[in-house]
Protein backbone atom coordinates (compact mmCIF):
# COMPACT_ATOMS: atom_id res chain seq x y z
CA UNK A 1 0.00 0.00 0.00
CA UNK A 2 1.31 3.42 -1.00
CA UNK A 3 1.89 6.00 1.69
CA UNK A 4 0.50 8.73 -0.54
CA UNK A 5 -1.51 8.38 -3.73
CA UNK A 6 -2.89 11.08 -6.00
CA UNK A 7 -5.56 9.82 -8.41
CA UNK A 8 -6.58 12.18 -11.21
CA UNK A 9 -6.09 15.16 -8.96
CA UNK A 10 -7.08 18.57 -10.32
CA UNK A 11 -7.06 21.98 -8.68
CA UNK A 12 -8.65 25.03 -10.19
CA UNK A 13 -9.57 28.46 -8.89
CA UNK A 14 -12.23 30.99 -9.92
CA UNK A 15 -10.95 34.18 -11.47
CA UNK A 16 -12.63 37.53 -10.73
CA UNK A 17 -14.65 37.21 -13.98
CA UNK A 18 -15.88 33.81 -12.64
CA UNK A 19 -14.02 31.86 -15.28
CA UNK A 20 -12.08 28.81 -14.00
CA UNK A 21 -8.30 28.66 -14.02
CA UNK A 22 -6.88 25.15 -14.01
CA UNK A 23 -3.66 25.00 -12.04
CA UNK A 24 -3.31 21.22 -11.85
CA UNK A 25 -5.04 18.66 -14.01
CA UNK A 26 -5.12 14.85 -13.94
CA UNK A 27 -2.18 14.42 -11.60
CA UNK A 28 -1.42 10.80 -10.71
CA UNK A 29 1.35 9.99 -8.28
CA UNK A 30 2.08 7.21 -5.82
CA UNK A 31 4.81 7.41 -3.21
CA UNK A 32 5.73 4.44 -1.05
CA UNK A 33 7.13 4.55 2.46
CA UNK A 34 10.87 5.27 2.43
CA UNK A 35 10.89 6.19 -1.26
CA UNK A 36 12.64 9.32 -2.58
CA UNK A 37 10.85 11.24 -5.32
CA UNK A 38 11.76 14.55 -6.92
CA UNK A 39 9.53 16.95 -8.86
CA UNK A 40 11.01 19.59 -11.13
CA UNK A 41 9.20 22.46 -12.75
CA UNK A 42 9.46 26.09 -13.75
CA UNK A 43 7.86 28.97 -11.89
CA UNK A 44 4.09 29.00 -12.50
CA UNK A 45 3.97 25.31 -13.31
CA UNK A 46 1.81 24.57 -10.26
CA UNK A 47 4.55 23.44 -7.83
CA UNK A 48 3.17 25.47 -4.90
CA UNK A 49 -0.35 24.14 -5.45
CA UNK A 50 0.96 20.59 -5.63
CA UNK A 51 2.94 21.19 -2.43
CA UNK A 52 -0.25 22.41 -0.71
CA UNK A 53 -2.01 19.21 -1.72
CA UNK A 54 0.85 16.86 -0.85
CA UNK A 55 1.19 18.54 2.56
CA UNK A 56 -2.56 18.14 3.28
CA UNK A 57 -2.85 21.93 3.32
CA UNK A 58 -5.43 22.08 0.53
CA UNK A 59 -8.06 19.88 -1.09
CA UNK A 60 -8.33 19.00 -4.78
CA UNK A 61 -11.30 20.24 -6.83
CA UNK A 62 -11.37 16.87 -8.62
CA UNK A 63 -9.79 13.47 -8.09
CA UNK A 64 -8.76 11.94 -4.79
CA UNK A 65 -5.77 11.97 -2.50
CA UNK A 66 -5.31 8.84 -0.45
CA UNK A 67 -3.14 9.34 2.62
CA UNK A 68 -1.91 6.23 4.39
CA UNK A 69 -4.82 4.22 3.01
CA UNK A 70 -7.51 6.78 3.82
CA UNK A 71 -9.18 9.17 1.38
CA UNK A 72 -8.43 12.80 2.19
CA UNK A 73 -12.06 13.70 1.47
CA UNK A 74 -13.01 11.80 4.65
CA UNK A 75 -10.65 13.92 6.80
CA UNK A 76 -11.99 16.82 8.82
CA UNK A 77 -9.92 19.99 8.89
CA UNK A 78 -8.67 19.01 12.35
CA UNK A 79 -7.81 15.48 11.17
CA UNK A 80 -5.72 17.00 8.38
CA UNK A 81 -3.92 19.32 10.80
CA UNK A 82 -3.18 16.44 13.12
CA UNK A 83 -2.05 14.07 10.37
CA UNK A 84 0.19 16.80 8.98
CA UNK A 85 1.77 17.49 12.35
CA UNK A 86 2.21 13.80 13.13
CA UNK A 87 3.27 12.39 9.75
CA UNK A 88 4.67 15.16 7.56
CA UNK A 89 7.84 17.20 7.98
CA UNK A 90 8.51 20.32 5.91
CA UNK A 91 11.87 21.69 4.78
CA UNK A 92 11.67 25.10 3.11
CA UNK A 93 13.87 27.04 0.72
CA UNK A 94 14.17 30.03 3.11
CA UNK A 95 14.56 27.70 6.14
CA UNK A 96 11.69 29.50 7.90
CA UNK A 97 13.22 29.30 11.33
CA UNK A 98 11.66 31.46 14.03
CA UNK A 99 13.93 34.43 14.55
CA UNK A 100 15.13 35.20 18.04
CA UNK A 101 14.58 31.58 19.04
CA UNK A 102 17.56 29.21 19.51
CA UNK A 103 18.20 26.15 17.34
CA UNK A 104 16.84 24.03 20.18
CA UNK A 105 13.67 26.14 20.55
CA UNK A 106 13.08 25.98 16.79
CA UNK A 107 13.48 22.22 16.76
CA UNK A 108 11.08 21.93 19.70
CA UNK A 109 8.22 23.69 17.82
CA UNK A 110 6.62 20.51 16.31
CA UNK A 111 6.83 18.78 19.70
CA UNK A 112 4.57 21.47 21.19
CA UNK A 113 1.77 19.89 19.15
CA UNK A 114 2.73 16.25 19.87
CA UNK A 115 1.20 14.08 22.59
CA UNK A 116 2.07 14.23 26.27
CA UNK A 117 5.05 11.87 26.26
CA UNK A 118 6.93 13.70 23.56
CA UNK A 119 5.91 17.14 24.83
CA UNK A 120 7.36 16.56 28.30
CA UNK A 121 10.57 15.07 26.81
CA UNK A 122 10.80 17.73 24.14
CA UNK A 123 14.22 19.10 25.08
CA UNK A 124 15.82 15.64 25.14
CA UNK A 125 14.27 14.61 21.82
CA UNK A 126 15.15 17.89 20.08
CA UNK A 127 18.71 17.85 21.44
CA UNK A 128 19.22 14.30 20.14
CA UNK A 129 17.94 15.31 16.70
CA UNK A 130 20.21 18.36 16.52
CA UNK A 131 23.16 16.19 17.51
CA UNK A 132 22.18 13.83 14.72
CA UNK A 133 22.43 16.61 12.12
CA UNK A 134 25.76 17.73 13.58
CA UNK A 135 24.58 20.76 15.55
CA UNK A 136 25.05 19.43 19.06
CA UNK A 137 27.38 22.34 19.81
CA UNK A 138 25.01 25.03 18.49
CA UNK A 139 21.88 24.35 20.52
CA UNK A 140 21.67 27.86 21.96
CA UNK A 141 22.52 29.70 18.73
CA UNK A 142 19.77 31.76 17.13
CA UNK A 143 19.28 31.74 13.33
CA UNK A 144 20.98 35.13 13.16
CA UNK A 145 24.19 33.47 14.37
CA UNK A 146 24.04 30.40 12.11
CA UNK A 147 25.28 30.01 8.53
CA UNK A 148 22.84 29.14 5.73
CA UNK A 149 23.90 25.48 5.80
CA UNK A 150 23.51 25.33 9.57
CA UNK A 151 20.08 26.94 9.39
CA UNK A 152 18.95 24.36 6.86
CA UNK A 153 20.27 21.59 9.12
CA UNK A 154 18.18 23.03 11.99
CA UNK A 155 15.20 23.02 9.58
CA UNK A 156 15.89 19.35 8.75
CA UNK A 157 16.12 18.50 12.45
CA UNK A 158 12.79 20.28 13.00
CA UNK A 159 11.19 18.39 10.10
CA UNK A 160 12.36 15.03 11.45
CA UNK A 161 11.88 15.55 15.18
CA UNK A 162 8.40 13.97 15.31
CA UNK A 163 9.51 11.01 13.18
CA UNK A 164 7.33 11.79 10.13
CA UNK A 165 6.39 9.27 7.45
CA UNK A 166 6.89 11.88 4.72
CA UNK A 167 9.32 14.77 4.32
CA UNK A 168 8.32 17.51 1.88
CA UNK A 169 11.33 19.54 0.82
CA UNK A 170 10.46 22.69 -1.13
CA UNK A 171 13.58 23.94 -2.93
CA UNK A 172 15.74 22.86 0.04
CA UNK A 173 18.98 24.08 -1.50
CA UNK A 174 17.60 27.17 -3.21
CA UNK A 175 19.19 29.58 -0.75
CA UNK A 176 22.52 27.77 -0.44
CA UNK A 177 25.68 27.73 -2.52
CA UNK A 178 26.30 24.63 -4.61
CA UNK A 179 28.71 22.93 -2.25
CA UNK A 180 26.65 23.59 0.89
CA UNK A 181 23.47 22.62 -0.97
CA UNK A 182 24.98 19.27 -1.94
CA UNK A 183 26.07 18.60 1.66
CA UNK A 184 22.62 19.50 3.01
CA UNK A 185 20.94 17.31 0.41
CA UNK A 186 23.16 14.36 1.29
CA UNK A 187 22.29 14.85 4.94
CA UNK A 188 18.56 15.02 4.16
CA UNK A 189 18.86 11.91 2.03
CA UNK A 190 20.85 10.01 4.66
CA UNK A 191 18.68 10.98 7.62
CA UNK A 192 15.41 10.30 5.83
CA UNK A 193 16.65 6.88 4.67
CA UNK A 194 17.86 6.10 8.19
CA UNK A 195 14.45 7.01 9.66
CA UNK A 196 12.52 5.27 6.90
CA UNK A 197 10.70 8.45 5.87
CA UNK A 198 9.60 9.02 2.29
CA UNK A 199 11.11 12.17 0.75
CA UNK A 200 9.51 14.35 -1.92
CA UNK A 201 11.82 17.10 -3.14
CA UNK A 202 10.45 19.95 -5.25
CA UNK A 203 13.30 21.65 -7.05
CA UNK A 204 14.42 23.29 -10.24
CA UNK A 205 17.96 21.94 -9.82
CA UNK A 206 18.48 18.80 -11.99
CA UNK A 207 21.45 17.72 -9.88
CA UNK A 208 19.28 17.69 -6.77
CA UNK A 209 16.44 15.98 -8.62
CA UNK A 210 18.82 13.29 -9.79
CA UNK A 211 19.47 12.17 -6.21
CA UNK A 212 15.92 10.76 -6.00
CA UNK A 213 14.76 7.23 -6.85
CA UNK A 214 12.20 8.65 -9.28
CA UNK A 215 11.86 12.03 -10.91
CA UNK A 216 8.77 13.84 -12.28
CA UNK A 217 8.36 17.06 -14.22
CA UNK A 218 5.45 19.42 -13.64
CA UNK A 219 4.59 21.44 -16.68
CA UNK A 220 1.45 23.57 -17.11
CA UNK A 221 -0.27 21.68 -14.29
CA UNK A 222 0.46 18.21 -15.63
CA UNK A 223 2.83 15.76 -13.96
CA UNK A 224 4.89 13.40 -16.11
CA UNK A 225 7.75 11.01 -15.34
CA UNK A 226 11.18 12.45 -16.16
CA UNK A 227 14.17 10.53 -17.32
CA UNK A 228 16.98 11.12 -14.79
CA UNK A 229 19.39 12.40 -17.41
CA UNK A 230 16.80 14.77 -18.84
CA UNK A 231 15.76 16.48 -15.61
CA UNK A 232 17.42 19.70 -16.70
Amino acid sequence: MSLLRLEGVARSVRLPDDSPLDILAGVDLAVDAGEHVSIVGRSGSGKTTLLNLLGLLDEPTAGEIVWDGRALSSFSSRDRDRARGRDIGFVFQQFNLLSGRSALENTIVPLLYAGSDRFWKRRTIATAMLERVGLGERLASTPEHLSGGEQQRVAIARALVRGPKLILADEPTGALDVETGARVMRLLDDVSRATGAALITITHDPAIAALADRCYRLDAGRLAPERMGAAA
Partner: protein
Amino acid sequence: MNRLREAFTTVAATVIEGWNELRAQRTRVLMSLIGVGLAVAAITGAVAAGSIAEQSIREGEERGSGRAASLSVNAYDDMGSSDPVLLAERLEPLVERFGIDYHARRVYGEPIALESPAGLLRTESAAVDPAWGAMRRIPVEHGRWFTERDERMLAPAVLVDEIAWENLGSPALGEHPTVRIQGERSATAEIVGVVASQNSSREWSAGTVYLLVDDYLELAPPLDPTTSSVETYLWVPEGEAEALADAIRAELQAQYPVTVSVQVERNDPAAWGGGAATGLLWLQLGLVGVASIVLLLAALSLVNITMVTVRHRVREIGIRRAFGATGRRVFVGVVMESVVGTAFAGVIGVAIAVLALQNPWVRELIGDGIVEPPPFPIGAAVVGLLVAVGVGALAGVLPALVAVRVRVIEAIRF
Protein backbone atom coordinates in the same frame (compact mmCIF):
# COMPACT_ATOMS: atom_id res chain seq x y z
CA MET B 1 -6.88 9.84 33.03
CA ASN B 2 -5.06 9.90 29.69
CA ARG B 3 -7.50 12.47 28.31
CA LEU B 4 -6.92 14.62 31.39
CA ARG B 5 -3.16 14.34 30.91
CA GLU B 6 -3.49 15.28 27.23
CA ALA B 7 -5.71 18.25 28.11
CA PHE B 8 -3.22 19.41 30.72
CA THR B 9 -0.39 18.99 28.22
CA THR B 10 -2.27 21.10 25.65
CA VAL B 11 -2.85 23.89 28.18
CA ALA B 12 0.78 23.77 29.35
CA ALA B 13 2.06 23.77 25.76
CA THR B 14 -0.17 26.74 24.85
CA VAL B 15 1.02 28.76 27.84
CA ILE B 16 4.68 27.89 27.12
CA GLU B 17 4.16 28.84 23.47
CA GLY B 18 2.64 32.18 24.52
CA TRP B 19 5.40 32.87 27.02
CA ASN B 20 8.14 32.02 24.48
CA GLU B 21 6.51 34.34 21.98
CA LEU B 22 6.41 37.16 24.52
CA ARG B 23 10.03 36.52 25.45
CA ALA B 24 11.10 36.63 21.82
CA GLN B 25 9.29 39.93 21.25
CA ARG B 26 9.81 41.46 24.66
CA THR B 27 10.53 45.02 23.52
CA ARG B 28 7.33 45.30 21.48
CA VAL B 29 5.32 43.59 24.17
CA LEU B 30 6.85 45.69 26.94
CA MET B 31 5.98 48.92 25.17
CA SER B 32 2.42 47.84 24.52
CA LEU B 33 1.92 46.57 28.05
CA ILE B 34 3.12 49.64 29.93
CA GLY B 35 -0.26 51.29 29.44
CA VAL B 36 -2.11 48.15 30.57
CA GLY B 37 0.06 47.84 33.69
CA LEU B 38 -0.40 51.49 34.64
CA ALA B 39 -4.14 51.37 34.05
CA VAL B 40 -4.47 48.23 36.19
CA ALA B 41 -2.38 49.96 38.89
CA ALA B 42 -4.73 52.94 38.70
CA ILE B 43 -7.89 50.82 38.91
CA THR B 44 -6.56 48.65 41.75
CA GLY B 45 -5.13 51.69 43.53
CA ALA B 46 -8.40 53.64 43.24
CA VAL B 47 -10.45 50.75 44.62
CA ALA B 48 -7.97 50.09 47.45
CA ALA B 49 -7.41 53.78 48.30
CA GLY B 50 -11.17 54.22 48.32
CA SER B 51 -11.52 51.44 50.85
CA ILE B 52 -8.82 52.94 53.11
CA ALA B 53 -10.29 56.43 52.80
CA GLU B 54 -13.77 55.03 53.45
CA GLN B 55 -12.48 53.35 56.62
CA SER B 56 -10.85 56.63 57.67
CA ILE B 57 -14.05 58.60 57.08
CA ARG B 58 -16.16 55.95 58.78
CA GLU B 59 -13.89 55.97 61.82
CA GLY B 60 -14.08 59.76 61.95
CA GLU B 61 -17.86 59.63 61.80
CA GLU B 62 -17.96 56.87 64.38
CA ARG B 63 -15.79 58.91 66.73
CA GLY B 64 -18.41 61.64 66.53
CA SER B 65 -21.62 59.65 66.44
CA GLY B 66 -20.80 56.07 67.40
CA ARG B 67 -20.34 52.72 65.74
CA ALA B 68 -23.18 50.79 64.21
CA ALA B 69 -25.45 50.45 66.10
CA SER B 70 -25.21 53.08 68.84
CA LEU B 71 -28.23 53.95 70.97
CA SER B 72 -28.44 57.07 73.13
CA VAL B 73 -30.64 56.86 76.24
CA ASN B 74 -32.16 59.93 77.90
CA ALA B 75 -34.94 60.65 80.35
CA TYR B 76 -36.04 64.31 80.46
CA ASP B 77 -38.87 65.77 82.47
CA ASP B 78 -41.17 68.42 81.05
CA MET B 79 -38.73 71.10 82.26
CA GLY B 80 -35.98 69.59 80.15
CA SER B 81 -33.84 68.36 83.03
CA SER B 82 -32.70 64.85 83.83
CA ASP B 83 -31.23 62.86 86.69
CA PRO B 84 -28.26 60.93 85.32
CA VAL B 85 -27.64 59.03 88.56
CA LEU B 86 -31.21 57.74 88.65
CA LEU B 87 -31.09 56.87 84.96
CA ALA B 88 -27.86 54.91 85.46
CA GLU B 89 -29.40 53.01 88.37
CA ARG B 90 -32.49 52.07 86.36
CA LEU B 91 -30.58 51.25 83.20
CA GLU B 92 -28.00 48.98 84.86
CA PRO B 93 -30.28 45.93 85.38
CA LEU B 94 -31.69 46.31 81.86
CA VAL B 95 -28.21 46.34 80.32
CA GLU B 96 -27.33 43.17 82.19
CA ARG B 97 -30.60 41.47 81.30
CA PHE B 98 -30.27 42.22 77.60
CA GLY B 99 -26.58 41.17 77.60
CA ILE B 100 -25.27 44.51 76.33
CA ASP B 101 -21.47 44.42 76.76
CA TYR B 102 -20.71 47.98 75.72
CA HIS B 103 -22.40 50.83 77.52
CA ALA B 104 -20.89 54.12 78.60
CA ARG B 105 -21.78 57.55 79.88
CA ARG B 106 -20.35 60.70 78.43
CA VAL B 107 -20.47 63.92 80.44
CA TYR B 108 -20.48 67.11 78.42
CA GLY B 109 -19.27 69.31 81.27
CA GLU B 110 -17.18 72.28 82.26
CA PRO B 111 -13.51 72.82 81.38
CA ILE B 112 -10.93 71.52 83.81
CA ALA B 113 -7.81 73.33 85.00
CA LEU B 114 -4.49 71.49 85.01
CA GLU B 115 -1.27 72.70 86.52
CA SER B 116 1.34 72.88 83.79
CA PRO B 117 4.95 74.11 83.63
CA ALA B 118 3.60 77.26 81.93
CA GLY B 119 0.89 77.88 84.49
CA LEU B 120 -2.74 76.89 84.85
CA LEU B 121 -4.11 75.20 81.73
CA ARG B 122 -7.86 75.32 81.09
CA THR B 123 -8.59 72.19 79.06
CA GLU B 124 -11.80 70.79 77.64
CA SER B 125 -13.10 67.87 79.66
CA ALA B 126 -14.37 64.58 78.38
CA ALA B 127 -15.67 62.40 81.19
CA VAL B 128 -16.43 58.88 80.03
CA ASP B 129 -16.75 55.28 81.17
CA PRO B 130 -14.02 52.77 80.14
CA ALA B 131 -16.14 51.24 77.34
CA TRP B 132 -16.23 54.59 75.55
CA GLY B 133 -12.80 54.05 73.92
CA ALA B 134 -13.93 50.95 72.00
CA MET B 135 -17.40 52.36 71.31
CA ARG B 136 -16.01 55.47 69.63
CA ARG B 137 -12.69 54.08 68.28
CA ILE B 138 -10.69 56.61 70.27
CA PRO B 139 -7.17 56.44 68.77
CA VAL B 140 -4.65 56.00 71.60
CA GLU B 141 -1.29 57.30 70.36
CA HIS B 142 0.78 56.50 73.47
CA GLY B 143 0.12 54.54 76.64
CA ARG B 144 -3.29 52.94 77.08
CA TRP B 145 -7.01 53.58 77.38
CA PHE B 146 -8.96 53.33 80.67
CA THR B 147 -9.59 49.95 82.21
CA GLU B 148 -12.16 48.98 84.81
CA ARG B 149 -9.28 48.74 87.30
CA ASP B 150 -8.84 52.52 86.96
CA GLU B 151 -12.32 52.97 88.42
CA ARG B 152 -11.15 51.33 91.65
CA MET B 153 -7.93 53.30 92.04
CA LEU B 154 -7.74 55.99 94.70
CA ALA B 155 -5.79 58.38 92.47
CA PRO B 156 -7.71 59.22 89.30
CA ALA B 157 -6.32 58.13 85.95
CA VAL B 158 -6.53 60.52 83.02
CA LEU B 159 -5.74 60.54 79.34
CA VAL B 160 -4.85 63.73 77.54
CA ASP B 161 -4.97 64.59 73.89
CA GLU B 162 -1.82 65.49 71.98
CA ILE B 163 -2.35 69.24 72.42
CA ALA B 164 -2.71 68.99 76.19
CA TRP B 165 0.21 66.55 76.33
CA GLU B 166 2.48 69.02 74.53
CA ASN B 167 1.26 71.81 76.83
CA LEU B 168 2.23 69.64 79.79
CA GLY B 169 5.75 69.24 78.39
CA SER B 170 5.22 65.84 76.69
CA PRO B 171 6.11 63.77 79.76
CA ALA B 172 7.29 60.19 79.14
CA LEU B 173 4.44 57.80 80.01
CA GLY B 174 6.88 55.10 81.08
CA GLU B 175 7.75 57.24 84.08
CA HIS B 176 4.09 57.34 85.28
CA PRO B 177 3.75 61.12 85.03
CA THR B 178 1.16 62.89 87.17
CA VAL B 179 -0.73 66.10 86.76
CA ARG B 180 -2.43 68.28 89.38
CA ILE B 181 -6.13 68.94 88.68
CA GLN B 182 -7.55 72.16 90.12
CA GLY B 183 -11.29 72.03 90.61
CA GLU B 184 -14.00 71.95 93.19
CA ARG B 185 -11.60 69.59 94.85
CA SER B 186 -8.01 69.21 93.76
CA ALA B 187 -6.37 65.90 93.06
CA THR B 188 -3.23 64.46 91.53
CA ALA B 189 -3.98 62.22 88.56
CA GLU B 190 -1.74 59.80 86.68
CA ILE B 191 -1.53 60.32 82.93
CA VAL B 192 -1.96 56.80 81.53
CA GLY B 193 -2.31 57.61 77.83
CA VAL B 194 -2.30 60.15 75.03
CA VAL B 195 -5.01 60.17 72.38
CA ALA B 196 -5.08 61.80 68.97
CA SER B 197 -6.54 65.26 69.12
CA GLN B 198 -10.05 65.75 67.74
CA ASN B 199 -9.43 69.49 67.67
CA SER B 200 -7.10 70.62 64.92
CA SER B 201 -6.56 74.14 66.27
CA ARG B 202 -3.73 74.48 68.77
CA GLU B 203 -4.27 78.21 68.79
CA TRP B 204 -7.80 78.10 70.22
CA SER B 205 -7.63 74.97 72.31
CA ALA B 206 -5.42 74.05 75.26
CA GLY B 207 -6.32 70.43 74.63
CA THR B 208 -8.72 67.91 76.13
CA VAL B 209 -8.42 65.78 79.22
CA TYR B 210 -10.29 62.47 79.49
CA LEU B 211 -11.44 61.41 82.95
CA LEU B 212 -13.64 58.64 84.25
CA VAL B 213 -17.18 59.88 84.93
CA ASP B 214 -17.11 59.22 88.67
CA ASP B 215 -13.77 61.02 89.06
CA TYR B 216 -15.08 63.96 87.10
CA LEU B 217 -18.26 64.26 89.14
CA GLU B 218 -16.12 64.27 92.28
CA LEU B 219 -13.59 66.83 91.08
CA ALA B 220 -15.64 69.18 88.90
CA PRO B 221 -18.19 71.71 90.11
CA PRO B 222 -21.81 70.39 90.27
CA LEU B 223 -23.28 69.99 86.81
CA ASP B 224 -25.20 72.99 85.57
CA PRO B 225 -28.19 71.56 83.65
CA THR B 226 -28.16 74.57 81.29
CA THR B 227 -24.58 74.04 80.13
CA SER B 228 -23.86 70.38 80.98
CA SER B 229 -25.43 67.04 80.30
CA VAL B 230 -24.80 63.36 80.88
CA GLU B 231 -25.57 61.11 77.94
CA THR B 232 -25.74 57.35 78.12
CA TYR B 233 -24.86 55.27 75.08
CA LEU B 234 -25.23 51.59 74.26
CA TRP B 235 -23.41 49.75 71.49
CA VAL B 236 -25.57 46.86 70.32
CA PRO B 237 -25.64 44.43 67.38
CA GLU B 238 -26.98 46.21 64.30
CA GLY B 239 -29.69 43.67 63.59
CA GLU B 240 -31.10 43.90 67.12
CA ALA B 241 -30.88 47.68 67.51
CA GLU B 242 -34.49 48.51 66.79
CA ALA B 243 -35.96 45.76 68.98
CA LEU B 244 -33.61 46.58 71.86
CA ALA B 245 -34.39 50.31 71.59
CA ASP B 246 -38.12 49.60 71.78
CA ALA B 247 -37.75 47.17 74.70
CA ILE B 248 -35.47 49.45 76.76
CA ARG B 249 -37.64 52.50 76.06
CA ALA B 250 -40.76 50.66 77.20
CA GLU B 251 -39.18 49.23 80.34
CA LEU B 252 -37.58 52.52 81.39
CA GLN B 253 -40.69 54.52 80.64
CA ALA B 254 -42.65 52.19 82.91
CA GLN B 255 -40.35 53.17 85.79
CA TYR B 256 -40.83 56.94 85.33
CA PRO B 257 -43.89 59.12 85.83
CA VAL B 258 -45.66 60.29 82.69
CA THR B 259 -44.05 63.72 83.03
CA VAL B 260 -40.70 62.16 82.16
CA SER B 261 -40.10 61.25 78.55
CA VAL B 262 -37.68 58.40 77.89
CA GLN B 263 -35.85 58.56 74.59
CA VAL B 264 -33.82 55.68 73.16
CA GLU B 265 -32.59 56.69 69.71
CA ARG B 266 -30.15 55.31 67.25
CA ASN B 267 -27.64 57.97 66.14
CA ASP B 268 -24.69 56.29 64.37
CA PRO B 269 -23.88 57.23 60.72
CA ALA B 270 -25.13 53.88 59.36
CA ALA B 271 -28.60 54.77 60.65
CA TRP B 272 -28.78 57.67 58.23
CA GLY B 273 -27.26 56.06 55.16
CA GLY B 274 -23.49 55.95 55.59
CA GLY B 275 -22.72 59.65 55.59
CA ALA B 276 -19.59 60.93 53.86
CA ALA B 277 -18.56 57.45 52.71
CA THR B 278 -21.42 57.57 50.18
CA GLY B 279 -19.90 60.66 48.56
CA LEU B 280 -16.59 58.83 48.45
CA LEU B 281 -18.19 56.04 46.44
CA TRP B 282 -18.87 58.52 43.64
CA LEU B 283 -15.28 59.76 43.76
CA GLN B 284 -14.10 56.16 43.66
CA LEU B 285 -16.38 55.36 40.73
CA GLY B 286 -15.05 58.45 38.94
CA LEU B 287 -11.45 57.33 39.44
CA VAL B 288 -12.25 53.81 38.25
CA GLY B 289 -14.04 55.35 35.25
CA VAL B 290 -10.99 57.42 34.28
CA ALA B 291 -8.69 54.41 34.79
CA SER B 292 -11.04 52.31 32.64
CA ILE B 293 -10.73 54.82 29.82
CA VAL B 294 -6.93 54.65 30.16
CA LEU B 295 -7.20 50.85 30.09
CA LEU B 296 -9.40 50.97 27.01
CA LEU B 297 -6.85 53.18 25.24
CA ALA B 298 -4.06 50.84 26.34
CA ALA B 299 -6.04 47.87 25.01
CA LEU B 300 -6.59 49.65 21.68
CA SER B 301 -2.88 50.37 21.54
CA LEU B 302 -2.20 46.69 22.25
CA VAL B 303 -4.56 45.63 19.45
CA ASN B 304 -2.98 48.19 17.13
CA ILE B 305 0.57 47.04 17.80
CA THR B 306 -0.43 43.39 17.49
CA MET B 307 -2.17 44.06 14.19
CA VAL B 308 0.78 46.06 12.85
CA THR B 309 3.11 43.17 13.59
CA VAL B 310 0.75 40.63 12.10
CA ARG B 311 2.82 40.87 8.90
CA HIS B 312 5.72 39.48 10.83
CA ARG B 313 3.55 36.92 12.58
CA VAL B 314 1.91 35.58 9.40
CA ARG B 315 5.05 33.69 8.50
CA GLU B 316 5.53 32.34 11.98
CA ILE B 317 1.90 31.21 12.16
CA GLY B 318 2.30 29.53 8.78
CA ILE B 319 5.30 27.64 10.14
CA ARG B 320 3.37 26.54 13.21
CA ARG B 321 0.41 25.43 11.07
CA ALA B 322 2.78 23.44 8.83
CA PHE B 323 4.08 21.60 11.88
CA GLY B 324 0.70 20.53 13.17
CA ALA B 325 -0.89 23.48 14.96
CA THR B 326 -4.65 23.28 14.42
CA GLY B 327 -6.68 26.41 13.66
CA ARG B 328 -8.12 26.29 17.17
CA ARG B 329 -4.66 25.93 18.65
CA VAL B 330 -3.41 28.95 16.69
CA PHE B 331 -6.44 31.00 17.79
CA VAL B 332 -6.04 30.05 21.45
CA GLY B 333 -2.28 30.49 21.18
CA VAL B 334 -2.51 34.08 19.90
CA VAL B 335 -5.17 34.97 22.47
CA MET B 336 -3.04 33.30 25.15
CA GLU B 337 0.01 35.39 24.18
CA SER B 338 -2.08 38.48 24.74
CA VAL B 339 -3.55 37.12 27.99
CA VAL B 340 -0.16 36.00 29.37
CA GLY B 341 1.23 39.45 28.53
CA THR B 342 -1.59 41.46 30.08
CA ALA B 343 -1.78 39.13 33.09
CA PHE B 344 1.94 39.78 33.62
CA ALA B 345 1.31 43.52 33.25
CA GLY B 346 -1.63 43.16 35.63
CA VAL B 347 0.54 41.51 38.30
CA ILE B 348 3.06 44.36 37.95
CA GLY B 349 0.19 46.91 38.07
CA VAL B 350 -1.28 45.35 41.23
CA ALA B 351 2.21 45.24 42.78
CA ILE B 352 2.67 48.96 42.01
CA ALA B 353 -0.70 49.72 43.65
CA VAL B 354 0.15 47.62 46.73
CA LEU B 355 3.57 49.26 47.11
CA ALA B 356 2.11 52.74 46.62
CA LEU B 357 -0.57 52.16 49.25
CA GLN B 358 1.92 50.70 51.74
CA ASN B 359 3.88 53.95 51.50
CA PRO B 360 3.54 55.71 54.90
CA TRP B 361 3.13 59.11 53.24
CA VAL B 362 0.24 57.87 51.08
CA ARG B 363 -1.34 56.09 54.06
CA GLU B 364 -1.08 59.30 56.09
CA LEU B 365 -2.66 61.27 53.26
CA ILE B 366 -5.70 59.07 52.67
CA GLY B 367 -6.10 57.32 56.02
CA ASP B 368 -5.13 59.95 58.58
CA GLY B 369 -5.81 58.91 62.19
CA ILE B 370 -7.13 55.52 61.21
CA VAL B 371 -7.38 53.11 64.20
CA GLU B 372 -8.03 49.87 62.33
CA PRO B 373 -6.16 50.15 59.02
CA PRO B 374 -7.83 47.73 56.60
CA PRO B 375 -5.54 45.20 54.89
CA PHE B 376 -4.96 45.75 51.15
CA PRO B 377 -8.33 44.75 49.73
CA ILE B 378 -7.88 41.38 48.02
CA GLY B 379 -11.00 42.19 46.00
CA ALA B 380 -9.23 45.18 44.42
CA ALA B 381 -6.25 42.99 43.42
CA VAL B 382 -8.56 40.32 42.01
CA VAL B 383 -10.53 42.96 40.07
CA GLY B 384 -7.25 44.37 38.69
CA LEU B 385 -6.03 40.97 37.55
CA LEU B 386 -9.39 39.95 36.06
CA VAL B 387 -9.56 43.24 34.17
CA ALA B 388 -6.02 42.68 32.85
CA VAL B 389 -6.83 39.13 31.73
CA GLY B 390 -10.11 40.27 30.18
CA VAL B 391 -8.40 43.07 28.28
CA GLY B 392 -5.76 40.59 27.09
CA ALA B 393 -8.40 38.18 25.84
CA LEU B 394 -10.35 40.92 24.05
CA ALA B 395 -7.22 42.47 22.56
CA GLY B 396 -6.07 39.04 21.37
CA VAL B 397 -9.27 38.06 19.57
CA LEU B 398 -8.84 40.28 16.51
CA PRO B 399 -5.24 39.25 15.77
CA ALA B 400 -6.21 35.64 16.50
CA LEU B 401 -9.00 35.80 13.90
CA VAL B 402 -6.48 37.14 11.40
CA ALA B 403 -4.05 34.39 12.39
CA VAL B 404 -6.44 31.50 11.73
CA ARG B 405 -7.20 32.85 8.25
CA VAL B 406 -3.54 32.60 7.26
CA ARG B 407 -2.97 30.37 4.24
CA VAL B 408 -0.02 28.26 5.21
CA ILE B 409 2.06 27.97 2.06
CA GLU B 410 1.52 31.62 1.09
CA ALA B 411 2.48 32.59 4.62
CA ILE B 412 5.62 30.50 4.58
CA ARG B 413 6.67 31.89 1.20
CA PHE B 414 5.85 35.43 2.37
